[in-house]
């Protein structure tokens, strides 16, 4: 084969790859709710990155300005200038705490999902690719972990390793591992039967090479889809742990912890401190869910329910 022909083929392949990406983007654009989800997620990420610049106030002033305690926001004449969403019981700016909270939630989400991906992919690939008793053992353990509601398992792990934000991340990561392992395993089982894997084996590629070069890259779609959906769950569960007092500890500006500290004040009419952090959680989770659903529809129509 002349060099020219090779160039031609490579060119053609690259063009083909481009059009595939282009086609995916086009399909994504048609999915309005997915685009909305993407926008929400981008805003969330921007808030997290730019929190220092866009937050009007210090989220954790010390000592707290108790004279500003539970002041309403822009909708009321009694509000303090520069604190558009009002203040919490320690006189801290709710808006600033929510913006910094985006940082906390995303960090927890990414770390937890990262742990789950690392462990889940390893276990899933080993179980799916090698099969046999390895598979049986791993999957039985996964089954047992599935016998617990995720939040309860996270609480149990927190009970062992202790409370706090970093421990909550680890706990959630462990809790999501079985889900990821199951998804990867089923994907690997499907790919394993493909002809190109058989070809690889026939030409004597090592298991390691087959897994790293062929099995893993081809199971990337469910990883992206379920990783996104898992991020939504992680943000929700992180807030839940914070709310129960088992996750982020004060004065960390975490959405769930903000809620748990401020909801007893709704009786005295201070609704804002408990309302806005919840809206932040709801919108972030909604955005990620929509994005995940959209990605699933375009990347892997097989998974559509």
């Amino acid at each position, binding site marked *: 084969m002349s060099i020219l022909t090779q160039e031609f083929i490579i060119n053609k392949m690259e063009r083909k790859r481009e059009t595939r990406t282009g086609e995916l983007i086009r399909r994504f654009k048609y999915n309005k*709710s997915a685009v909305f989800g993407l926008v929400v997620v981008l805003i969330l990420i921007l808030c997290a990155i730019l929190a220092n610049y866009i937050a009007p106030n210090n989220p954790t002033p010390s000592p707290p300005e108790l004279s500003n305690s539970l002041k309403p926001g822009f909708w009321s004449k009694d509000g303090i200038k520069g604190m558009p969403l009002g203040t919490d019981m320690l006189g801290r700016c709710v808006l600033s705490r929510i913006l910094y909270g985006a940082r906390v939630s995303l960090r927890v989400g990414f770390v937890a999902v990262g742990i789950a991906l690392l462990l889940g992919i390893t276990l899933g690939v080993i179980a799916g690719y090698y099969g046999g008793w390895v598979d049986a053992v791993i999957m*039985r*353990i996964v*089954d*047992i972990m599935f*016998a*617990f*509601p*995720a*939040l*309860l398992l996270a*609480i*149990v792990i*927190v*009970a*062992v390793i*202790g409370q706090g934000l970093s421990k909550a991340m680890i706990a959630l990561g462990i809790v999501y591992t079985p889900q990821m392992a199951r998804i990867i395993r089923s994907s690997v089982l499907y790919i394993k039967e493909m002809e190109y894997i058989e070809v690889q084996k026939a030409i004597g590629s090592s298991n390691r090479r087959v897994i790293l070069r062929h099995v893993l890259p081809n199971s990337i779609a469910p990883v992206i889809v379920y990783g996104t959906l898992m991020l*939504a769950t992680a943000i*929700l569960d992180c*807030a*839940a742990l914070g*709310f*129960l*007092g*088992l996750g982020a500890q004060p004065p960390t500006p975490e959405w*769930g912890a903000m*809620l*748990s500290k401020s*909801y007893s004040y*709704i*009786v005295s*009419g201070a*609704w804002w401190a*408990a*309302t806005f*952090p*919840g809206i932040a*959680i*709801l919108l972030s*989770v*909604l955005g990620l*869910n*929509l994005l995940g659903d959209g990605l699933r529809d375009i990347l892997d129509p097989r998974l559509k*329910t």
Partner: protein
Amino acid sequence: MKWYITKRLLMLIPVLLGTSIIAFSLIHLAPGDPARIMAGEHASQQVISAITQKYGLHKPLYIQYGIWLNCVLHGDMGRSIISNEYVIKEIFDRFPNTFELTFFSMVLAIIIGTFAGIISASKQYSTLDYTFMGLALFGVSMPVFWLGIMLMMIFGVYLRWLPISGRIDILIPFQRITGFYLLDSIITGNFAALISVLRYLILPSIALATIPMATIARVSRSSMLEVLRQDFIRTERAKGLSERVVIYKHAVRNAMIPVITVIGLNFGLLLAGAILTETVFSWPGIGKYVVNAVRMRDYPAVQGCILFFAFMFVIVNLITDIIYVYIDPRIHYK
């Protein structure tokens, strides 16, 4: 059928054993001396040595596990560090509260969820469909605890329609028989108490029902749409059956199988949601109990709750599997 149920029951054993290993290792994984952990930080030397003796804590781990499992199977899960009560008793005291809350929420979620799904599917792309599915989308992303707080704020604090925490108005005379408030007030014919119990039940169960309701609505819609596209539905319409008969008599029955799967799967979410809902509404159930136990490092209580939750979850999954066979005779189990 009998064989199938026996087989399913046998399959429970490894899962339950695994769960018990998780619960058992809790005390050994937690930092500190197991005997001291079980006895509590402020226990006397006497209590600690009694516990060491009872659970054989100086023996190898697998023997310890055996002793502990034997105790658990005889209903002895140890004593709570905080209250010094038997954990099993504390769990049984709280179980009726959690059961009533979750049961009520599940009923609510199933009724409203399936109906919303059926209506959405039979009027696909209508305003009603979009409204229901929009709400369901919010529902699946809803932080339960926040929804609880909002309901509390709107209906309890501002409108003052419903009470915000507890189980029954303390001023109403009430006789406890079974511990199930609803049941007890019906048995004793105490109408005032029944009304009060229901009023206290409304907000927590709406909060708890939201997520399963939304999931059930989404699944029953897509399942209905699939069934409505099938040939036998076209035949029925062609032979002139009314739309109501087609949908409610023939389509629904065929569309319910995935819905039942989802209901079974959602039970776990419901238990997790109960932990949060009970904390928000100060509902004296097992969810609130386990959170307090973790906060106070009351490990025997945490152990008991783990076993209890896992047991519940496994049983519900079993029931779901058995219901399939009754609902769809086409499913054959080997």
